Structures are given as C-alpha cells and as structure tokens.
C-alpha cells in the first residue's frame, strides 16, 4: 500500500505539481473551448484568456505564501 501510494503521489506531483488550481482551470478552459466551438468557429480566444488568468492566479498564490 505504501509503494502504491508513493507511485500515485509521484504521478500526481509529476503532472499536477504544487498547485492543483492550474489543472482545474486548464480542464475548465478546454471544456469551455469545446462547448464554445459547437456554436462558433471563433472560439480560439477563450483558452489564452483563461491560461493567462490561471498563470496570474497561481503566481499570486505562490507569492502570498512567501
């Protein structure tokens, strides 16, 4: 069980890293882009906007911890 947990924690840390908020926002942004793409072809702008906000949010959280 200990090794299985360590294996899971390794992959969590490898993919998700220090701030799970980034992964949540990325998934939400991709889902939002996919939903918007069913209505219009001009849906490319949504992902850059949310990624910029995600970067700002994760930086703000990191700086607050310092």
């Amino acid at each position, binding site marked *: 069980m200990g090794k299985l947990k360590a294996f899971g924690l390794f992959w969590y840390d490898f993919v998700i890293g220090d*701030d799970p908020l980034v992964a949540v926002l*990325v998934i939400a942004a991709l889902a939002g882009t996919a939903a918007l793409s069913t209505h219009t072809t001009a849906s490319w702008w949504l992902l850059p906007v949310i990624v910029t906000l995600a970067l700002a949010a994760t930086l703000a959280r990191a700086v607050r911890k310092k």
Partner: protein
Amino acid sequence: MGTAFLLLSVFLACAVEAVEALTIVLAVGLTRGWRSALQGVAAGLLLLAVVVAALGPALTVLPLKALRLVVGGLLLTFGLQWLRKAILRASGYKDLRDEAAAYQREVKAAREAAASKKSLVEDWYAFTLSFKGVVLEGLEVAFIALTFGANQRDIPLAAVAAVAAVLAVCVAGVAVKAPLARVPENTMKFAVGVMLTGFGLFWGAEGAGAHWPGNDAALPLVLAYILLVAVGAVWVLKRRRAAWAS
C-alpha cells in the same frame, strides 16, 4: 516552421533535464566509484526505453484531435508549472537553480552514506541514486519528446532532438568532469516553460475544436504572446518585491 520549433523545444527541454541528471550521476560516480553509478544509469535508461517503446506506438494510433486535446491539456498543466517556477526565480521569489551547489549537496550525502552490496551491485546507494536521477529526469525528457513528436506526427525527429541534447550534455560533462554550472539553466528553463505552455495552448485549443486564425502560422504568435505575458509577470513581481523591500 513547426519542425524548427519542435526541434528547438525538445532539444532545450531535454538539455535542461540532462544537466540535472548529469549533476547527480557525476557526484555519485566521482565520490563512490563509477561501476555501480553506471549500472544505475544503464538500468534507468533500460526502464525509460521500455516506457517509450510502450507509449510511443500507443500515442500514434490515437486520432489527432483527441491526441491534441489530451496532450495539449497535459502540456498546459506541465508547462504552467515550469513557467510559474521560472517566473518566480527570475523575479527573485525563488532561489535560482545552482548546479555547483546541487553537486556539493549530492557529494556530501554520497560521502556520508554507508555502502551495502546487493546481488550484482557492489554499492546499492550509488546504484539507486544514479537510477533515480536518470529515471526522474528522463521521464520528463520522454514525456516532452513523445508528446511533441506524436502531435507533429514525427516521433523519430523528436527522439533525434532528445538524444542529441542528452549526448551533447554528456560529452560536455565528461570533458569538464564537473557539473555544468555555466550552462544558462534558469534562462533555458524560462524558454522551455514558454514553449511548453505555448504548444499546449495551441494544440489544446485545436483539440477542443477551435480553429486558429491563419492555422499553423498562428503558432509563433501564440509563443510570442506567452513570452510577453511571462516577461510582464516578471516585471510586475520584481516591482512588487522592490516596493515591499523599500
């Protein structure tokens, strides 16, 4: 254009990871002897080869749209982590990575650890440390090379860039017999963070069904946008830090 960015991104990312793995292997090899350290390197490379051999063909059979959605999401999550750390380092909120200091820490730990023999391995400590260094850093290399290569439908080209980067770092390390402290590692990490995030953004949007204006010609603009945002974030954080200090 896409091929050049692919080669550059994979080469830079793999070189950065190889520098970190080299620091660990050099510290172990020069402090405790090369036999067990190189056994650890060989075992690590074997495991990575198995991972690449299993995942590589699996990625290429996925439909391109699904692949770009999944890989774009993973690269975005992964790239934003790199970018956050790189921005925090560049703005002074996180210590810069120092290979010479990392090497000294590894040497100190290697000198203090006791030796124990296990089957064919004379020094288990040297073996496991080298093995872990190669596997942990190598997994990132394999992940980046496979995802970039699969998305461009050119895994062999990505593999060539990855192997060239690792070989270049190894040759330099053997030549100087010291950690590559003069490699501009922090700047390279910043560039890799921008590229991982930019490619993740581009492919992720395409995978989600969006169409970029100008198609592939939009990629350099996406990368430039991420670079601009990252440099802007460094500027803002530096000013905040200076205001806080005064």
